[in-house]
């Protein structure tokens, strides 16, 4: 009986995400927490299930980038409810990590970066989006400030690829290279280039990129 109610609430939570209903998602999450349901289960069987459905629809062109953003926003609000309810030593169970993300200096392409951002949010990362045309030192300062785990760089212009090298070289020069994992992606980046500049990870698409982010932090 008890299990049945939990299941039904989790299904409703998934549905709330597919309907971009942040209020219901938040209420249902509080309800589930008060019934002692494990936060990880709330995320995996409720929130993530919902976001996965929206992302499948996005890939079939049934919904569009704004819908992905609405769904990710609703999910984020619910995840915050979970974080608030946890004692400090358990919060890390829910947040996979903090990512500083942006399109590098000189480059204003942001469609792919925005898609990657929603995928990261949907996977359970906290994302600090610095926008486009972001100078090297902004990435580094922000990462230091918020104690990021990952710096993610998007680049679509061959003539801006040098900026990826710049960020990594500066991290080394400042002796903080080991503090961060650097992920690179976007149309102009190739596996070979990522390797050449000694990035920690490269991915051709956003979904695999979010999986990779999990993997390089050992959260899989």
């Amino acid at each position, binding site marked *: 009986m008890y299990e049945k109610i939990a299941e039904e609430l989790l299904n409703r939570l998934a549905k709330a995400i597919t309907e971009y209903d942040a209020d219901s998602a938040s209420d249902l999450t509080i309800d589930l927490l008060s019934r002692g349901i494990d936060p990880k289960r709330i995320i995996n069987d409720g929130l993530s299930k919902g976001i996965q459905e929206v992302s499948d629809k996005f890939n079939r062109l049934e919904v569009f980038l704004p819908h992905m953003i609405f769904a990710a926003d609703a999910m984020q609000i619910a995840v915050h409810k979970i974080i608030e309810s946890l004692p400090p030593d358990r919060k890390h169970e829910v947040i996979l990590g903090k990512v500083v993300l942006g399109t590098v*200096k000189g480059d204003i392409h942001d*469609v792919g970066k925005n898609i990657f951002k929603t995928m990261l949010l949907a996977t359970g990362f906290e994302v600090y989006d610095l926008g486009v045309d972001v100078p090297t030192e902004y990435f580094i300062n922000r990462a230091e400030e918020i104690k990021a785990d990952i710096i993610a760089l998007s680049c679509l212009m061959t003539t801006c690829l040098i900026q990826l090298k710049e960020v990594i070289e500066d991290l080394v020069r400042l002796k903080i290279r080991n503090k961060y994992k650097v992920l690179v992606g976007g149309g102009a980046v190739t596996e070979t280039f990522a390797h050449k500049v000694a990035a920690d990870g490269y991915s051709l698409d956003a979904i695999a990129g979010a999986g990779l982010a999990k993997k390089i932090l050992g959260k899989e």
Partner: protein
Amino acid sequence: MSLSFTEIVDRAINTGEKIEVKDFDMKVFRETERLKEKYSIKFNKENTINTNDDMADRLFLAGKEFYKKIGTYVMDSKRIIKFTEKEIDEALNEIPGIIWIGRGTDKRIMKHRGVGDQTLPIIQGGVIGGNATEEYYIPLYQSIAQEQLVDSIYFDPPHVIEGRAVMHGSPLEIHSARCAAMWAREAITRAGRPGMHLLGGAGSAVADISTCQEGIGIRPSDAICAHTTSELKIDYDSLNKIMHTLHYNCMRQVWWAPVIGGFAGGAEGSAITAVGGLFHGLLVGQGAKGSAYFDLQVTPYYKAGATDRLSLWILSIAGQAIARNTKAILQGTVTTSAGPGTKMMLYEIGASAISQVVSGMHIFGVRIQKPTKENHGTAMESKWVAEVSRAAVNINRNEGDAIVSKLLSNYEHNIKNAPEGGGFIELYDTKRLTPYEDYLRIYEEVRREIADMGLPIN
């Protein structure tokens, strides 16, 4: 009294309302959602070339209402440049509908084209974004210039110069851009067409501006590109290009690229922003001044050139909306999924060129959605797009739609796995500047096939 560009820039940097970019993006989404209902705009996948005049006219009104409400977002200042209805109407009235591009005997008249207009479209050829390299630059562009049906040429600079990787906005970019402009001029001169109109897309404003020089570089009879960030955003770099062209008195290609699946949503929303972009081009891009032409570059966010049904429909209906209701000179970009030397690319070029020419547009192309090689393009694609476009002035939208349906059935299923094809070196004799047999054979086959489908190409 016409609105001055100084006043527009003042709105951009000083007086426009400030908002966060995310809020602007969401406003774009909400407005397109609202307007597609209000004006009953509906994508029909069986009618890729739109034949519904009433819907094209409603789309025009939707695009106008959209732009009036939204304006242009300035990324550097976070301000919105907005215009009153009166200012928008004045700009619409001022469009001259005719410009001259190029010089001497290579000069061409570029006129507003209407739907079903028999006026030949201007063909602006080139290997757009195809990573042309220093060593092959002159032969590649000379081979394009020697195609007599190509009226004008677009070029962008190499990504590596003298063995060094070029960085955007740096002195190496200026060096690369200036060299490219000189080589492009050398190429057209060698082809015996020194006055041919050139369009430069160097990258940053400082690089584009550096190419502007009477004699060896971009002349006043040539043009540079001024980009618009999707959807309806601009940066100081692009505004700087516009200001410079007004002072230098050369031309501009003002272009915008609705991203299908992005903040404008699907087909209908993207079509509304496609028309909305025109008003941005007229006012912020100073297109009403008679020194600019417009380019609509439809861009799927997913893996596809602008040759799937959605893209072709958007190009055709937005083109018609603008052609029927303004005197604007509008190009559409031909973007393919497949690469050179493949039948698929020639089918895609055919479908795109037909859809646009019967809808009142001029032609900018060809570009591959995702170039993967150096010198990833040849003169053949420019020649082919010109031939198809010239033939397409003799058919109407219904006939065009029937041919496009047949072409689609030849490539549609391969869009996601399109062949990358070859580059200039694999497909052309780079000394004699002629295509190799294999490519010629493919071209001739497709030419026969498209004639059998009903295009009067012979």
